[in-house]
């Protein structure tokens, strides 16, 4: 397991570079045992409930954000044989089409990497302390949580 499993940052990330990095071991060499790499990227949509989204502001709970995501990652490692599992989540002001979150998993075979990505996203959506606020021409409003997100946890 590598260091820096969780990064919370305001700067954009380079998804391609992060994906390549999943294959590297702690000493920087390529892990030849990696047969499967799965990733997920969450992006800012242009429309939400009809109004044009202009800016999205991501607030978070420093300390708890990292802890909760590290816990989710730990749970995934306990469930599946993973060589690597990493999450990057942005905070601050984002615009439509910006990338908000990146989850990457590496394993020997595909089932672990694919399942771990989905698992991490499902739990992050309901447990990681971030809050989105939309700034639109019509005014500011906090994005509401979706019942579907809590429901998604049940399949695990």
């Amino acid at each position, binding site marked *: 397991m590598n260091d820096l499993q969780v990064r919370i940052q305001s700067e954009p990330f380079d998804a391609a570079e992060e994906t390549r990095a999943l294959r590297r071991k702690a000493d920087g060499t390529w892990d030849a045992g990696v047969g499967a790499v799965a990733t997920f990227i969450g992006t800012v949509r242009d429309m939400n409930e009809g109004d044009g989204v202009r800016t999205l502001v991501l607030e978070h*709970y420093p300390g708890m954000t990292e*802890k909760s995501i590290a816990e989710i990652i730990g749970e995934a490692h306990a469930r599946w044989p993973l060589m690597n599992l990493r999450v990057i989540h942005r905070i601050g002001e984002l615009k439509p089409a910006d990338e908000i979150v990146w989850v990457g998993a590496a394993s020997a075979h595909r089932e672990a990497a694919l399942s771990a990505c989905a698992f991490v996203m499902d739990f*992050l959506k309901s447990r*990681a*302390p*971030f*809050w989105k606020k939309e700034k639109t021409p019509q005014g500011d409003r906090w994005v509401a*949580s979706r019942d579907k997100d809590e429901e998604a946890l049940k399949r695990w």
Partner: protein
Amino acid sequence: MIQLRLFASLRETTGVEFEEFPLPAGIATLGQLREHLRARGPVWAEALDPKRAIRGAVNQRMSRDHDVISDGDEVAFFPPVTGG
């Protein structure tokens, strides 16, 4: 002392981001603290009303009403999360 943190719309409604105060006598759980804060006035009573979906954390771990709080703890209340 208890360190209280509020986030998102809850912070905006109450006007409080962070507060430190002694753990009130008789308050031993997260739920009891929530009720204690509601007694501050109508804004707090409404914002932390049981019918509102409000989440709590003790020492940065997601917690429930029955979870114990002790002197020195960091307690946070916030709306359901919307990350990802």
